[in-house]
């Protein structure tokens, strides 16, 4: 199984990187982009075919994300080969 972890800054946290990206997109002529947020993406390859959600959630809470400033969500993907 592959755990795909998307980590984003909490809404309450100012995101100057996101703002800089937004400004640059506008500058480049891309209209209609209202907000941009810059986060982090992790991929974990796990043994087996069942998502071990609680284990990975715990890892996210304790280490992979900082709950003070970040939100996370996990998407699961089965391995292509059996």
């Amino acid at each position, binding site marked *: 199984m592959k755990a795909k972890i998307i980590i984003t*800054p909490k809404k*309450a*946290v*100012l995101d*100057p*990187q996101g703002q*800089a990206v937004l400004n640059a997109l506008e500058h480049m002529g891309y209209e209609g982009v209202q907000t941009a947020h810059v986060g*982090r993406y992790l991929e974990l390859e796990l043994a087996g075919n069942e998502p071990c959600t609680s284990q990975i959630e715990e890892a996210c809470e304790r*280490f*992979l994300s*900082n709950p*003070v*400033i970040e939100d996370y969500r996990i998407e699961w993907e089965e391995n292509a080969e059996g």
Partner: protein
Amino acid sequence: MTDTLQVSNDSPSHKSSSKQLQFGVVQFPGSNSDQDCIHAVETMGHRAGYLWHKETQLGNLDAILVPGGFSYGDYLRAGAIARLSPVMKAVADFAENGGLVLGICNGFQILCEAGLLPGALIRNRSLQFRSEFVHLRVVHDQSPFTSQTPEGTLLRVPIAHGEGCYFADQETLQEMKANRQILWQYATADGALEDHANPNGSVEHIAGICSKHGNVAGLMPHPERACQNLIGSQDGQRLFSGIVDHLTQSS
């Protein structure tokens, strides 16, 4: 006149203490201000030794310094990996027992990641790495770390960081204010809390804080790089004086 590294003419005239203190300076792969921390302690006439990040036994220490740098290359998040090093369990136990722990810059980030201090440090608002002198205004002197700097004292110390913007949510900030946990704020040369004097966008201009029980502190600026006039400022020494005074008085 050559100002030698002995700095005998810069040493503070502290009251004679019977005890020579022993500081531990934690070293992670990527720490870079560890030597400056050792030197800062030695300018005070006390001793300091390294604590390699794999150490689990601290020995007999009076205080611990967690220095600046880029531990583990700031991988994942600044301080995120360093705080899992074996030595940090010993540092946490030391703090739990009331020992004095000071985190400087990356050290502050590590202590926040470790949960020994509230809040977190994020990317500077300007997205710039800021390496410059700033002024810090001391909020109160009721902490071991500020005992030698009365309220309103201005300290001129250098910063060098890209992720020094302090953040804590409103609830945490209220609690911190109630417990007098904010120790240093960025200020102008006249002591005013103005946005242009805040180099990184920290909430409430916070440069440094302490824990609820007051024995753990962290700040983004580098007092250990301001212990000799030769390199621009001696104001940082006043912070270490507070630690020394607290430890020698209570011994």
